């Protein structure tokens, strides 16, 4: 079974991110790392391929400056190879543009299953996976908290607000996973060493047969009109106990309608 995992490479969330006032988007010129949200998809893919006893895990990523840092981490976990789409023409690409690029890159292989995260940690529109599925003409299942494969289909437990739905879907298909679908492994030292020599196929927009005008700033169907720093969080109310603290807390919770 061959699985493609979409992995986004993002600025390290440990370093405070910065917005570029010119482009009104996140600055992405520092070293990028594997989005933790995608480590779940990578782990799930590795486990499914392992259970199937054959096949491989291929990564697909779109990122600026030929960035491979995050891909190397996922390769170190055990993925076999990666496709990286990096092209100056992609600067300013919005979610739909990203989906077009990823779909074209995935379309060059014919995977049995495509995995993505429910939403990325930096952009978190949560729209890319369904768009990719639509563009590839594949059925898609979202919010997977458990995935099993048998015969020609996937069995997915789909997280809902009050439990889960059991969904079956024929393959090929796309499934987006939640954090917690599996516990991602740490790469072993051998894995880290091996990742250095695993193939990363670097392709451009032209290689994918995509019209440069349909992506990047030019192709954007959306425009960011303004950016503001998030308001600082107001400090909460401190209740000093003068014998009635419990009553005041109950009244507060009552007001929030959480009781």
């Amino acid at each position, binding site marked *: 079974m061959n699985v493609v995992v979409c992995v986004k490479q993002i600025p390290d969330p440990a370093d405070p991110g910065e917005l570029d006032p010119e482009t009104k988007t996140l600055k992405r010129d520092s070293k990028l790392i594997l989005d933790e949200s995608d480590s779940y998809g990578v782990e799930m893919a590795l486990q499914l391929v392992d259970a199937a006893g054959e096949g491989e895990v291929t990564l697909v990523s779109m990122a600026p400056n030929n960035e491979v840092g995050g891909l*190397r981490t996922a390769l170190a976990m055990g993925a076999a190879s990666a496709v990286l789409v990096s092209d100056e023409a992609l600067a300013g690409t919005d979610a739909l543009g990203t989906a077009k690029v990823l779909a074209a890159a995935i379309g060059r292989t014919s995977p049995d299953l495509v995995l993505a995260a429910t939403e990325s940690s930096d952009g978190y529109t949560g729209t890319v996976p369904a768009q990719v599925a639509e563009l590839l003409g594949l059925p898609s299942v979202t919010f997977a908290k458990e995935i099993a494969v048998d015969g020609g289909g996937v069995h997915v437990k789909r997280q809902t607000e009050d439990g889960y739905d059991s969904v079956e879907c024929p393959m090929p298909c796309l499934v987006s996973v939640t954090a917690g679908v599996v516990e991602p*492994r*740490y790469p072993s*030292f051998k894995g*880290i060493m091996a990742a*250095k020599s695993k193939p990363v196929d670097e392709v451009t927009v032209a290689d994918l047969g995509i019209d440069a005008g349909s992506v990047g700033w030019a192709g954007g169907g959306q425009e960011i009109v303004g950016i503001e720093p998030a308001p600082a969080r107001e400090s909460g109310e401190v209740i000093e106990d003068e014998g009635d603290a419990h009553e005041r807390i109950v009244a507060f919770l009552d007001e929030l309608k959480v009781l």
Partner: protein
Amino acid sequence: MTADQDLSDEIVATVRQWVERDVIPNASEFEHADEFPEAMFEQMCEFGLFGATIGIEYGGLGLDITTYARLIEELARGWMSLAGILNTHKIGATMIERYGTDEQRQRYLPQMVDGSFRAAFSLSEPDAGSDTRALRCKAVPDGDEYIINGTKMWVTNGVRAKLVMLLARTPDDRITCFLVEKEPGPSHGGISVSRTIPKLGYKGVETVEMSYVDHRVPAAAVLGGDEGLGQGLGYALSALELGRINIAARAVGVGQAAFEAAMRYAQERETFGQPIIGHQAIAFKLSEMATKLQAARLMTYDAARRYDSGERADMEAGMAKLFASEAAFEIATDAMRIHGGNGYTQEYPVERYFRDTPLMIIGEGTSEIQKMVIARKLLERYPAT
């Protein structure tokens, strides 16, 4: 061998991430319960830590000592005992790789890379610690076997190990190293764990007293074969030289943890209307702690770098061990003082650092012994003309 810098950084960063997520939040709980950290140990095996420095030809990773020292530092920053689970194994593997016969290397090293077959190192005895030449454990040849009798003290990992690097005296009054295979557990053949030593710190990993009563090993168990007869002490002391870089790295790791805890606390805790770091007495303490830590780290990396590049590192390793272990103890003590009353409780990790750091001053040659080693090397390097 020197690994490329990127690779080394990535390996260290991976372990650091694990230590932060899985070790630091759980270390004190295991330590207080004196419980072997099974899950942490398994992850260490999965990383490949046990075979990290073993040659590629035996299935290891052949990592350089500088990278290894950085890994030890990260482990110890989380919990010193994790470095202890690894350390005797590393000493054993180094001795076999350097001094073992071809057959011994082929037999042991491939089994030693994944952590399933671990080594203990058994030199010390109740009456032979600093004075290694005083050791009394006996190995008497009998046909194509040796019969071993004696008591060994301070055998770290002694229960769980499957191989003991045992130093014993033969009837010709020379000291030889024997590769003693055993099953994990309290006894095996003539070997028994007579006592588990209760310790101030360094918990979760066992340090035991082991007795040998007419325990037989094949003659092939002599490390280095016939050539190794009588060479045991030399082999052990030379492996301990590398061990000193390792202990220095451990001290840097615990020192770092103690310093970070103190830095955090000094900014949170307020007295007389300001965070205590605003009082110059506390700020200066932190400055001194950071400076000592920086010096200890640089000395450790320098000794490791020298070792990797094939330069002489014997004296530098001793200096790094001496300085870093004393520095770590002082830093841990100051971190505890900065924590005030909280530093004296089990609710903050500094009490653990305070209990763990003295071991680095004692183990693998006390500070006094390091000074003797350094002085001897100084005389070699600066002979009277």
